[in-house]
């Protein structure tokens, strides 16, 4: 029993050490400068083929990813453009006021009806109402007047069913005129409520 065990241990040691020697000798050869040559043994050829195959299937994968990315990019671009045009559609039209007034005209209400519909179509959108004034009168009074205009717009939108949490207001008084002119035409453009998406 003991002799049999000793025999198998010798066999095991022989095999492992010969494996060790083989792998060492191979390394030595490579180290002598032949490693850069293309493999010549059948084993090596097979390995090379395998590698090429992997490479080919790699590039195939890559191509697939690229076309998917391109499609996604185009989709996103389209979404962005649509979002931008929707954003522009929402933000483009202002609501105008008479001098020293913050009552919404019928025209103003029609514009706001469209904005309310838009906000219902995009239920995740949040908007800020900016109140602006023309340059006439005190900066101080116009700050309050701009707030009144923004508040009037917000209250109207809320009355149309838009959640107040989606809306905020800010007054710029006469500090940010759209038209820097000093004519009645410029003033009428500057007495406005402007809406921006937040």
């Amino acid at each position, binding site marked *: 029993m003991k002799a049999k065990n000793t025999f198998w241990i010798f066999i095991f040691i022989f095999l492992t050490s010969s494996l060790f020697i083989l792998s060492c000798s191979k390394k030595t050869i490579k180290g002598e400068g032949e490693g850069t040559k293309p493999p010549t043994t059948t084993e090596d050829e097979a390995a090379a083929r395998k590698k090429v195959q992997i490479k080919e299937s790699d590039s195939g994968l890559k191509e697939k990813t690229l076309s998917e990315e391109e499609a996604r990019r185009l989709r996103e671009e389209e979404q962005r453009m649509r979002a931008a045009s929707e954003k522009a559609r929402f933000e483009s039209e202002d609501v105008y006021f008479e001098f020293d007034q913050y009552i919404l005209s019928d025209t103003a209400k029609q514009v706001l009806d469209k904005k309310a519909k838009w906000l219902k179509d995009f239920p995740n959108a949040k908007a800020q109402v900016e109140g602006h004034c023309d340059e006439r009168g005190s900066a101080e009074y116009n700050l309050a007047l701009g707030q009144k205009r923004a508040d009037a717009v917000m209250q109207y939108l809320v009355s149309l069913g838009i959640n107040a949490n989606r809306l905020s207001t800010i*007054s710029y008084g006469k500090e940010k005129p759209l038209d820097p002119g000093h004519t009645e035409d410029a003033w009428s453009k500057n007495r406005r409520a402007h809406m921006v998406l937040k």
Partner: protein
Amino acid sequence: MRKYPLKILGFLIAIGLFFGAYVPLLQAVVYLDIDSPSIKKIPVIIPNFKNRDSAEAGLGEAAAALLGHDLDYTGYFRILDPRGYIGAPDDLGPIDYKAWSLTGAEFLVKGQYNLEGSRLLLTLRLFDLQKGRQLLAKEYDTVPKDYKKAVHRFADEILFLLTGEHGLFQTKIAFISTNNGKKEIYSADFDGTNFQRLTQFNSITLTPRWSPRGNEIAFTSYKDGAPNVYLLQIPGLQTTRISSRPGVNITPAWYPDGESLAVALNNKGTSEILQLNRSGTVVQKLTQSWGIDVSPSWSPDGRQMAFVSNRSGSPQIYILNTASREVRRLTFQGNYNVNPAWSPKGNLIAFAGRAGGQFQIFTISPSGGEPQRLTNGGNNESPDFSPDGRMILFSSNRHGKSAIYIMNSNGSNQRRLTFTAGEQFSPTWCPKKFDE
């Protein structure tokens, strides 16, 4: 400092005796009644101050010019050219009263100075040419770079002696300027010189209001995104936010004791003016309306507050009695009256009102009546009184861009103070002298 106090005292006693014992001393020496509706300007002549040696020769010329500039600023004096004198104007010999009178001047200021090491000794004398006597003499012991302070002080002495009122020569103003493209707070001396930027928020900053103690400026700024009220420490320039309630937080106005401010808030259709302490806590609610209430200004005793409201349909000026809570309308002429500023003397409220499509400065008695129009041409807005109530600072675009102007409280003597790049708005006068 006072080298001739006995002479002045002797002069005052002499005048006092002349007018009789029942006349108060100060009233007796008032040469000019600046409350009279039409003032004849006093002609004064100021030759270059003479140096006893040759060092710093330019100082005498600059100091004499500055004194003339100061007196001219008050609107009560006319400065004559000393070359009208037949002799050598800066001669240090005895005063030839008769020869000086021939220039048309009624008063003469002579100055001499010398430098002892780093010290500047400047002696200034005021002479009454008609009576042929010296009225005032002061010696200032200072350093050459501070000669302006000495001159400002002597100008104040002259003004006090001749009018019974102190001058503004040691005060400062602040205002909004767009020098760097954005609306920032700047300060300057009373005459627009010594221009300095105080803020750099790169935002929209509005309505600076100097505190009664002179150590803070309250203002509104969008620097954190929305119009909030802040305090700016002077001279440290640290900023503290005191009101950032929803909507607009605007038009801070100091209560006379400097411990609280009235601030206008507008949000969700409601407008109110609150009294806040310096940390922003509500002391009391002063007004509330569904319209617009803004631009408070306290009476000097703090019992009343002027403000702008559109409760009658257009912006008009109202007065709140803080004890009885009664509100009465003050202005009835025109459809746009804003920017009330209560005089520190209590007797007038200045405001900007629309007349013929442009804004003009008016004054009105706090009890009401006919407003007096003070300006013409261009838009004239944002009046603020000097600490003595004698002058009004305001903004005007009469020469194109908006700049800071000054006038006497009766509308005379209107002059431009700022000549810098950009536009200037919303001036405020520091109620404290800066040397104190």
